[in-house]
């Protein structure tokens, strides 16, 4: 380390940490001293593509295996994440719908769980900034209000999407996505390869290709291979952070700290530090997805330009959310087909994604190994289970505008690759861990970033919102 004391220490280098830093650096003085502690290492995109081709690369063994980084007490429930520089930006699929305004007011509107401590309107300018930084492709006619157009044009519908668009208007839109519609900012245009975890053509936004200038900033010192275990919390202030690098223990003091790992490790660090907030680690969850394979008569599903071509909001908004969860529909454009003569592509895969709620039965706990948290997930809520039943009743009617032969449902997915809610946001410590500026209710110089902050778990993909929250928090706090 270059210094003994920093203005800001950030733990992690994924979306939450990077967008927080981006805003912080835009406001901090030129003399600011920032330290970033990243447990993983840089694994360049080009080397990841080589690995996918079956070629050997020295980078493939650098980063810890996520599966052995936690103790998962329920192996049927998967938790997907990466421990490398750039975190989950390396493996995400680039879906970036905004939340709906109602998602922030679940208690007020539906009597469910809690309201978020901030509104859609407060976050809206930061959604726009995030979309600009990520060069998001998207349509003009969205079901959520927008103050600015998407930076890139929307992706193209398939023939089936077009029928649904005609029927449902702005409830069926080209999916807003970080898979670029056209070449931009060093990225190529997406061409629907549908293997987005490592994009073959480098079309999706990642921290590596972001060109945000965060880690090149002279004020920022980035240390790889530095795994944080806990914080020194004294008299309602975070004083130091403890970490291990190359097998040796280190500590560093700072004016402010920002935890930007994922919702499992942020909670583990807080619990290891003695945080007694009753919600810390509690309510671990995510959305629940179910695949519907819709067989069509005499309509080939062709012509889309990306992986998820469209989002449908036909089962999302409404008073039904007093009783059961909202559902967001994803129109999937992977190269699936029927083995039936003359009907090869007369099929569409719709991923039905349901919101869920934080439950105390699902949580993160510490173990004897301070670096290795235990993850307990006993199941999704009845609120979500009921929505799945209702969806199966309602989907045939929703799809009546299509020549449907039959609908087959697959088993619910074991993961949507999101990790939410272990440090939920609230107006006070009575209902949560952090405030709307992502600052810990008790430790006022400690930010806890990322999707762990979510008060409820809307059906939408979390990355755009957690990145906008980081911009919002840094803008309002510095």
């Amino acid at each position, binding site marked *: 380390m270059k210094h003994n004391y920093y203005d800001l220490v950030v733990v992690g280098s994924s979306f939450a940490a990077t967008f927080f830093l981006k805003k912080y650096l835009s406001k901090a003085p030129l003399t600011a001293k920032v330290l970033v502690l990243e447990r993983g290492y840089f694994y360049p995109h080009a080397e990841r593509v080589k690995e996918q081709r079956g070629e050997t690369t020295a980078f493939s063994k650098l980063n810890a295996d996520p599966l052995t980084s936690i103790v998962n007490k329920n192996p049927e429930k998967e938790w997907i994440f990466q421990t490398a520089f750039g975190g989950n930006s390396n493996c995400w699929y680039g879906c970036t719908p905004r939340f709906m305004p109602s998602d922030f007011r679940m208690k007020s509107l539906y009597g469910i769980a809690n309201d978020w401590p901030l509104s859609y309107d407060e976050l809206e300018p930061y959604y726009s900034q995030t979309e600009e930084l990520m060069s998001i492709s998207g349509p003009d006619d969205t079901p959520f209000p927008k103050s600015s157009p998407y930076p890139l044009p929307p992706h193209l519908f398939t023939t089936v999407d077009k029928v649904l668009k005609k029927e449902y208007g702005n409830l069926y839109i080209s999916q807003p996505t970080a898979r670029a519609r056209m070449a931009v900012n060093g990225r190529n245009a997406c061409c629907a390869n549908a293997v987005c975890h490592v994009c073959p053509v480098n079309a999706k936004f990642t921290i590596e290709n972001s060109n945000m200038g965060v880690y090149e900033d002279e004020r920022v010192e980035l240390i790889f291979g530095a795994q944080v275990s806990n914080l020194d919390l004294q008299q309602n202030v975070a004083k130091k952070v403890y970490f291990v690098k190359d097998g040796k223990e280190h500590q560093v003091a700072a004016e402010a700290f920002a935890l930007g790992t994922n919702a499992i490790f942020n909670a583990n660090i807080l619990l290891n530090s003695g945080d007694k907030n009753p919600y810390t680690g509690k309510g671990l969850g995510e959305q629940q997805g179910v695949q519907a394979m819709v067989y069509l008569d005499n309509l080939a599903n062709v012509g889309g330009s990306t992986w998820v071509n469209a989002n449908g909001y036909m089962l999302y908004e409404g008073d039904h959310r007093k009783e059961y969860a909202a559902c967001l529909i994803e129109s999937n454009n*992977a190269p699936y087909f029927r083995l039936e003569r003359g009907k090869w592509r007369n099929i569409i895969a719709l991923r039905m994604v349901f919101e869920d709620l934080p439950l105390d039965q699902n949580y993160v706990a510490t173990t004897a190994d301070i670096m290795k948290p235990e993850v307990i997930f006993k199941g999704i809520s009845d609120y979500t289970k009921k929505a799945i039943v209702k969806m199966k009743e309602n989907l045939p009617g929703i799809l009546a505008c299509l020549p449907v032969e039959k609908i087959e449902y697959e088993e619910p997915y074991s993961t949507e690759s999101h990790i939410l809610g272990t440090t939920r946001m609230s107006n006070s410590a009575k209902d949560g861990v952090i405030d709307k500026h992502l600052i810990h209710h008790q430790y006022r110089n400690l930010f806890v970033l990322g999707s762990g902050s979510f008060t409820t778990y809307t059906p939408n993909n979390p990355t755009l919102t957690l990145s906008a929250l980081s911009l919002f928090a840094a803008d309002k706090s510095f």
Partner: protein
Amino acid sequence: MLRRKFLKLTGLGTGALVTIPTFGFATTSYEEAVTGILKKEIGYLDLDKKGIEKFIQDFSKDHDEKYRLKVRAMYLFGIEPEHSYTVNDIVRTYLLSTDFFLNQMNERKTVHYIGLYNPYVRPCTQPFSNLYYPAVTS
């Protein structure tokens, strides 16, 4: 009882099959089994014979002897793709690795093998995408 129905009912359509030796099993090679599966399932298409041979060569590189035994058994017992992931996978992988979908599913054209479908080797070859259906735009 029909053999196919029996297999379905007893579950022998899966792994248990590989333990049943028959005369056909001893004389049918893995290559013949893959070819037989393709001809049985999509033989109504004009399949390029040399292309099938090359496909089998490429496809087999990542599959061990146990897998090959399984494929031979699946073929000999006439297991349908809807009852076997293995059979389903062979037919789907073959078709995606040909120009059949790139030719917009034209069943009258000869189907040529291009190379194993792999977006990391040949990006932008998703055959249902807008690149291959330029007339279909939003």
